[in-house]
């Protein structure tokens, strides 16, 4: 079984707010020297694919990224943790356009050896749009299971645990299907061994221009961004309390906890 994992290379979302700068000329962040990483939910997706291979269900995993040339750095990490092939679909950095991304990724998936599943994160850690996975399923004509916590294979079907409103559900779907993955303690990406990291530096990374991947002519943009600004200041100031007793008293005064006021 071949699984494709879509990874996005993004600015490190752990960047503290004071280091986050917005380009004064256009609605994009300023990359500066900020570190670039694999989007965190995509790492959860990658871990689930690797676990399926550990359990003997998947025989081949391909990491696929639509991105700028420097995204090969993130694909090297994927190679270091054990994917069999890494493919970069070269794309100059552009504004967020999930429909276009999904269309291009779908064409690449169809160009690769037939896959039983595509795994990706439920949303990217930069624009947080949360659309590409679902749109990729639409573009491929495959079913989509979102908010996946875990996946297994039984009787030639995928069995997935997913979040639903009010709880969780276990669902089954025949391949091929798209799964968008959310974080749990059981899908944190494994650390690569140092030897694997070094070996990954020498592995070839397939690079395709979108046209080579057989994508259709550029689909029209379906999302436009006209402004990007820091959030409004919450302000107000913090009142420091010396101890728990003082805190309890203040909360009582405000009737936020039982026992306050002139009851």
């Amino acid at each position, binding site marked *: 079984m071949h699984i494709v994992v879509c990874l996005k290379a993004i600015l490190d979302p752990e960047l503290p707010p004071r280091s986050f700068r917005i380009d004064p000329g256009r609605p994009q962040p300023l990359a500066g020297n900020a570190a670039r990483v694999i989007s965190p939910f995509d790492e959860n997706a990658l871990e689930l694919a690797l676990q399926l291979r550990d359990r003997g269900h998947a025989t081949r995993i391909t990491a696929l990224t639509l991105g700028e040339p420097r995204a090969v750095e993130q694909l090297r990490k994927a190679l270091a943790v054990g994917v069999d092939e890494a493919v970069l679909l070269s794309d100059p950095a552009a504004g967020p356009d999930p429909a276009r991304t999904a269309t291009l990724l779908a064409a690449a998936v169809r160009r690769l050896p037939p896959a039983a599943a595509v795994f990706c994160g439920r949303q990217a*850690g930069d624009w947080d749009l949360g659309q590409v996975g679902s*749109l990729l399923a639409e573009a491929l004509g495959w079913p*989509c299971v979102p908010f996946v916590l875990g996946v297994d294979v039984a009787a030639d079907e995928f069995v997935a645990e997913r979040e639903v409103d009010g709880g969780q559900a276990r669902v089954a779907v025949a391949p091929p299907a798209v799964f968008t993955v*959310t*974080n749990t*303690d059981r899908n944190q990406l494994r650390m690569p061994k140092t030897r694997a990291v070094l070996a990954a530096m020498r592995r070839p990374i397939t690079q395709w221009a979108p046209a080579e991947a057989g994508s259709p002519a550029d689909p029209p943009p379906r999302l436009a*961004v006209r402004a990007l600004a820091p959030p409004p200041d919450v302000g107000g100031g913090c009142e420091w309390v010396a101890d*728990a007793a003082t*805190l309890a008293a203040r*909360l009582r005064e405000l009737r936020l906890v039982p026992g306050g006021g002139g009851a």
Partner: protein
Amino acid sequence: MSRVLALCFVADGQLPDGLAELTTAARAAAALLGGEAVAGLIGPGADSAAAALAAPDQPEAAGLAVLYTVDDPLLSDLAVERQLAAAQAVCRAADAATVLLNGDLRGRELGPRLAWRLDGGLVSDCTGLAGAEGPRLWCRRPAFGGKAVAEVTAGGGVQVIVLRPRAKVEPPAPGAAAPAGPATVGVPVDLSGVDEPVRLIARAADPAGTGPRLETARTVVAGGRGLGGPDGFAQVEELAAALDAAVGASRAAVDAGWTHPARQVGQTGRVVAPDLYLAVGISGATQHLAGIAAARTVVAINTDPEAPIFRRARFGLVADFRQAIPALLAALRSSG
């Protein structure tokens, strides 16, 4: 006239949570676009839910011109393909240029797929409307884990907007007298031929234990990485029980396996709007703050006075939770 459709899902004839916010947002969007707002109710019992909604003096329905319904027992909870087919039919019947959905998990799941099938685009996680330019409606939404706010518009054809939970879109200025109660129109859709490739095997309610639900709780006590391990959560739970509060957690605590993902509060976890939010051992990453934007009073207990949570908090206690929580419990239990 430009139509704005508020689309919601009915189960067993019950109107969903968040309907008032959804219809308010639809009316606000309609006012900006110079159009009219309508609603669509999809699910088993949608007809009776619509009848209840169309009754006089129903504030949620005030200002809606039409209620469209697709009432079919085949629209079970996770019948996603059928829900999409029904939604497409309602959008066509309503001739809607703009469709609004609430941002529960169902809305976030269906929104992108509906937009694709309507040959349009999607704005997800919308927290407010930022004006209209002709037929284009601009929306505000958080990005970069809450470190920025973007103004975006989607479309080509239909614009689908998924509202962030708890987002309060400003209602339109009260204009002319609201039209009389909306007309109800059933939309015929043949769902019998719609396959559901994803099959439900089992469902479980949130295993977060007894106690108030996070999303609706008036008080939340949440724990983060500063708890150091799952045992710390026992103290958080004790404090929550004493305050009749729901228990929440930061993403770090969930990723470490100290508590269940259903307790995660934040951009991709639950969005909460309590009167009181007690953050224990939580540093205050922006994606966590995104989940508590609507919390009225935030209290932070943390050993690090530089933790970003203190910039959001109304009250700050720099202390180790192992001492602070028992002391707080003792102070709360002692007579006023």
